[in-house]
């Protein structure tokens, strides 16, 4: 028997986490419909990295372009988490900003942001920081233009730093439980405040504090999906041409939710305490549940507003 025949079925399980940014971008689009913009031949490598004798990449760590999803035109940007941790530099950021600005003009059915990043690329610190601010502004402009901006987070490095702030500025967030979303990373907190504040090596603690399941239960994200490309794609498709209201009523409602969160959970020591407060039976079991079991546990416990986002 040919080994590769045997695994044809297994290969259908394309892990999102294990895929490269380029493979993810292709994977979010209908077959062969993705066209990359400023592809590697453009050789847009960072002069700032070069000045520091650090290896560069032809795409500066981000793949952008357009494709079709369920037949509709979409724009896609995918950060490569394995290059510099997906960190945002000058070129990297400008590619993403340009894509969002183009969306304002062309009005695709959605812009998908496949984020995997530690935030600002320290080697080009100031340019990276402002790039994130420009991305944030461009996201808002796309939303004002009624183009849904959908964030997908499923990479091993999570989505941190300034981009962790940008993500909730978008229309919707889809995560897998292996993904993390936060502003400060555990190592940063441990370095600044000590291991008693946050033991970054305790991965179980890291994930229940910042991982996909907790973010879902907190109401910070819209969908929790399995770690495979088709699941992310299906989830993304549900937001096509469905911009979320972005006006005074929306932020006032969000304000009330966030105030309530501090009130209800502000004194909780650990995520498990929050889950218990949400009325989940056996909250300590949450991390070990598969997606289906997790959804059941959440449904059973739903005390009214377990899950509600922007």
């Amino acid at each position, binding site marked *: 028997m040919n*080994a590769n025949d045997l*695994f044809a079925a*297994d290969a259908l399980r394309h892990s999102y986490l294990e895929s490269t940014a380029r493979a993810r971008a292709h994977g979010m689009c209908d077959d062969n419909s993705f066209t990359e913009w400023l592809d590697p031949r453009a050789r847009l490598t960072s002069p700032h990295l070069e000045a520091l004798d650090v290896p560069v990449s032809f795409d500066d760590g981000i793949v952008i372009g357009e494709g079709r999803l369920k037949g509709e035109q979409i724009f896609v940007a995918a950060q490569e988490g394995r290059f510099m941790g997906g960190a945002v530099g000058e070129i990297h950021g400008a590619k993403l900003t340009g894509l969002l600005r183009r969306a304002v003009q062309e009005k695709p059915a959605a812009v998908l942001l496949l984020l995997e990043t530690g935030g600002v690329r320290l080697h080009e610190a100031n340019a990276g920081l402002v790039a994130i601010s420009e991305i944030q502004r461009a996201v808002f402009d796309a939303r004002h233009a009624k183009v849904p901006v959908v964030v997908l987070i499923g990479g091993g490095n999570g989505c941190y730093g300034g981009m962790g702030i940008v993500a909730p500025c978008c229309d919707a967030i889809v995560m897998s439980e292996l993904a993390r979303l936060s502003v400060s990373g555990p190592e940063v907190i441990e370095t600044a405040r000590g291991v008693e504040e946050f033991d970054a090596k*305790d991965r179980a603690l890291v*994930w229940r504090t910042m991982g996909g399941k907790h973010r879902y239960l907190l109401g910070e994200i819209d969908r929790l999906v399995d770690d495979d490309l088709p699941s992310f794609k299906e989830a993304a498709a549900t937001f096509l041409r469905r911009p979320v209201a972005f006006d005074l009523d929306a932020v006032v409602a969000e304000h009330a939710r966030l105030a309530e969160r501090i009130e209800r959970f502000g004194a909780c020591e650990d995520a498990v305490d929050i889950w218990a407060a949400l009325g989940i039976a056996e909250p300590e079991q949450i991390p070990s549940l598969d997606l289906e079991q997790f959804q059941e546990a959440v449904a059973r416990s739903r005390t009214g507003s377990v899950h509600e986002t922007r």
Partner: protein
Amino acid sequence: MKRDAQWQWNSLALSKTARLERAGMVVQGKLVAPEDMVRLLEAVLEPEDRVCIEGDNQKHADFLAECLAKVNPERIHDLHIVQSNIALPQHLDVFEKGIARKLDFSYSGPQGVRMANLVEQGKVKIGAIHTYLELYGRYFCDLTPRVSFIAAQSADRHGNLYTGPNTEDTPAIVEATAFKNGIVIAQVNEMVDTVPRVDVPADWVNFVVRSPRPHYIEPIFTRDPAAITEIQILMAMMVIKGIYAKYGVTRLNHGIGFDTAAIELLLPTYAESLGLRGKICNYMSVNPCPTLIPAIESGFIQSIHSAGSELGTENYVAARPDIFYTGPDGSLRSNRIFCQLAGHYSDLFIGSTLQVDLQGNSSTATKSRMTGFGGAPNFGCDSRARRHTSEAWLKAGREASQTGAMPRGRKLVVQIVETFGEKMQPTFVERLDAWDLMDRFGMELPPVMVYGDDVTHLVTEEGIANLLLCRSPQEREQAIRGVSGFTPVGLARDRQAVENLRDRGVIRRPEDLGINPLHATRDLLAARSIKDLVQWSNGLYDPPKRFRNW
């Protein structure tokens, strides 16, 4: 001449009695309070005693090691430490302070650099570096401990000990000590009314202390499938098809690196697709490494004996008593010595190394560290005393046999390495660093892990060299160069000779085995993450928190 009638034949027993009497001034009975332990040690120890501080791969008598490092060096000095694994800082503190002077050991791992420095300063005088079997063999010969510090999970008030799944070296240590009038002191994690099973009977144990905290234990054999590379997968495919399938290897021992983890994770996928289930990897001598779970669950591995356990696998092992050796209580009973023995007489050993020379000698020694041998040499050598036969053993023997010689089998000893290691260090070298280490420490031999004449196969990303088929030292050298890739050693190959070896099947490239390197992707792994392993185990495997990313 016959000794006279006045000769003392029970001096060891008298010494033991004297020591126990001195101990009686410190403690009543067997149970010792932690705060009395240093005083107790000062009472029972004497200068120049041979002492074992149980230091296995998994469990460590760390509290007792700490106590020993606190005794007064004026009273207790020049001890001779006989111990398998120097893993904790306290193990070397006793030398730094002059409490101990001489050392016979097997393995020093993380303490290798500090050890090397202490040897150079003259604070540690090395007797010899052993394999586990050698060292424990000498426990019953010329290195019997006078006092042994051991670690166990629990004890009852009589002193019966339950070791937990990491029984490891405890039986050998206690047997040697207790039956030569030595003194056995155990630290336990908990005192219980009844131990789950008796691993060490109470009358072999002199003192028990409940350690203020559970003994040191780390999941040192857990390999996260997420870190397995495509190159390791390619080599694993070659091993499965070019060695396991070819010889029909049913009994074997795996090293604990990522290379062998890759093999384990390809069994339910790639090996299954080759129709090899039931034909290879039936019986293994190896710790319950989590990466074995898919191969067990899919019906490849039928039986595993382990030298020690691995954190997180307790419930899984207990739920698979047909596979593992477990006690009436359900938990694993491991034993380093028996596992070494089983592995020694099995059909194949496969493991990795840091350097290989042109004769195929391999070493994990580097210039700055003194790490020792552990168990690999006993697994990784031909079993010259083997008399029973097996398909794999006979086939290897036939390949090696010269016309007219007495027919016999050969154990397959496989070294699996990438041609370049970390930081572009070439694995293949003209001269092992082991020679420099020998010079630096005045050793009598270079510390070779596996001797070239024991190695039968070298596997690299470039191919498999079957050294059994080499008929001269020159052929052997070219066979090794022929799989050494782009290292200087590999670039210096005689191309024609290498092609000839390839024609004869001495060297086999992936394409010769029908393997396309581009198919060596992580999609072939039965599990690509720790979480996948948990799923394979139906939730029975409980990974330590540092391995969780969910």
